[in-house]
């Protein structure tokens, strides 16, 4: 197979674009895709400081690498989640990536956050699913660090497959409020929200993995141990079967939803958030989900002494 651009031997075949690329031309193709998404969706400009959420996986490290290569001003934010060896390896690879390239990285070890917020210990204390606790904690710290450090933009490595799987889940359950909000750019609805952007929303995870491989990025290969049997992986499997039979299905599904489907759900969007009485961050109740989680962990770890008879 020959490269579509220069006719050298192709190393990668992008079936949904009916294109093939050699290593050199693939870098150009990939960065153009990212730049197009950033520009077309008005995600951010070269004058803005971007906080990049980095887990140590292929997508977030590829995103950080691509943004730096393209000349954007970035700082990495890594949450050390406290999920055993998986988190230890993730943190080590993320810190190595930043150190090797001389990039600024903020690392928050959740286990050191009061009252000790390592995900496995939080899940154990509250009987919540680890993924639910992880989502609540991640959203809070992304918003809080961005607000405290003055970032207007938070970029995440969500890719086309993530967006297609999320869309399928939202459609299967007709979650109209979620459909109203699913977008590559989330405009802030509270003074302490940053703009959340997904520059890889049109790029498949095969493409991000290829970019990471070609760039020599040492990312975490193992999956989070909590992801086994995750619903999102079931949706991804279904979508990959459709994609294999009909290349372009995932891209069309997401693109056409954004173009024609999402506007139909605009009226279903929830009201703007209020302010959490406890931490001052945005909240859809009096107290935000993060503060309720922290209170529950604290209560379960330090139960009140049983009141005896007077």
């Amino acid at each position, binding site marked *: *197979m020959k490269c579509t651009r220069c006719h050298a031997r*192709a*190393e*990668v*075949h992008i*079936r949904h674009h009916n294109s*093939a690329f050699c290593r050199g031309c693939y870098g150009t193709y990939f960065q153009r895709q990212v730049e197009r998404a950033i520009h077309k969706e008005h995600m951010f400009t070269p004058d803005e400081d971007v906080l990049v959420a980095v887990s140590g*996986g*292929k*997508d977030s490290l590829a995103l950080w690498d691509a943004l730096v290569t393209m000349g954007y001003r970035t700082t990495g934010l890594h949450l050390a989640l406290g999920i055993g060896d998986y988190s230890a390896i993730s943190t080590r690879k993320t810190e190595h990536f930043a150190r090797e390239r001389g990039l600024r990285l903020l690392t928050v070890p959740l286990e050191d956050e009061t009252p000790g917020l390592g995900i496995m210990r939080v899940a154990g204390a509250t009987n919540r699913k680890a*993924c*639910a606790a*992880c*989502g609540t904690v991640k959203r809070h710290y992304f918003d809080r660090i961005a607000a405290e450090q003055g970032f207007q933009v938070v970029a995440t490595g969500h890719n086309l*497959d*993530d967006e297609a*799987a999320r869309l399928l889940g939202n459609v299967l359950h007709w979650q109209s409020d979620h459909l109203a909000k699913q977008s590559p750019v989330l405009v802030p609805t509270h003074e302490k929200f940053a703009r959340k952007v997904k520059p890889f929303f049109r790029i*498949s*995870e*095969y493409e*991000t*993995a*290829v970019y990471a*491989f070609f760039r020599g990025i040492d990312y975490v*290969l*193992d*999956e*989070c141990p*909590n*992801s086994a049997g*995750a*619903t*999102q*992986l079931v949706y*991804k499997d279904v979508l*990959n*079967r459709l*994609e*294999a039979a009909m290349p372009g299905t995932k891209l069309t599904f997401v693109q056409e939803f954004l173009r024609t489907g999402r506007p139909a759900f605009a009226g279903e969007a929830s009201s703007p958030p209020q302010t959490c009485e406890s931490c001052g961050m945005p909240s859809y109740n009096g107290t935000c989900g993060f503060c309720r989680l922290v209170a529950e962990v604290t209560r379960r770890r330090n139960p009140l002494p049983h009141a005896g008879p007077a």
Partner: protein
Amino acid sequence: MLITLLPQHQEIDLPGRQRVADVLRQLGLLPGTVMVIRGDELVTERDFLEADDRVEIRSVISGGS
């Protein structure tokens, strides 16, 4: 050819010269869900793998929740 599947770290030996697409089919893997790596290069599903090749097939699927 000796194939290492990642992240499972599983090794599989397949006989003869075969096209990548046929190898993936035998292993029950869909194109676009794995990278096929020979040495320090990627190969496409239309390329051939030789009987004495050592190949890494690395999953690209991630995610949870």
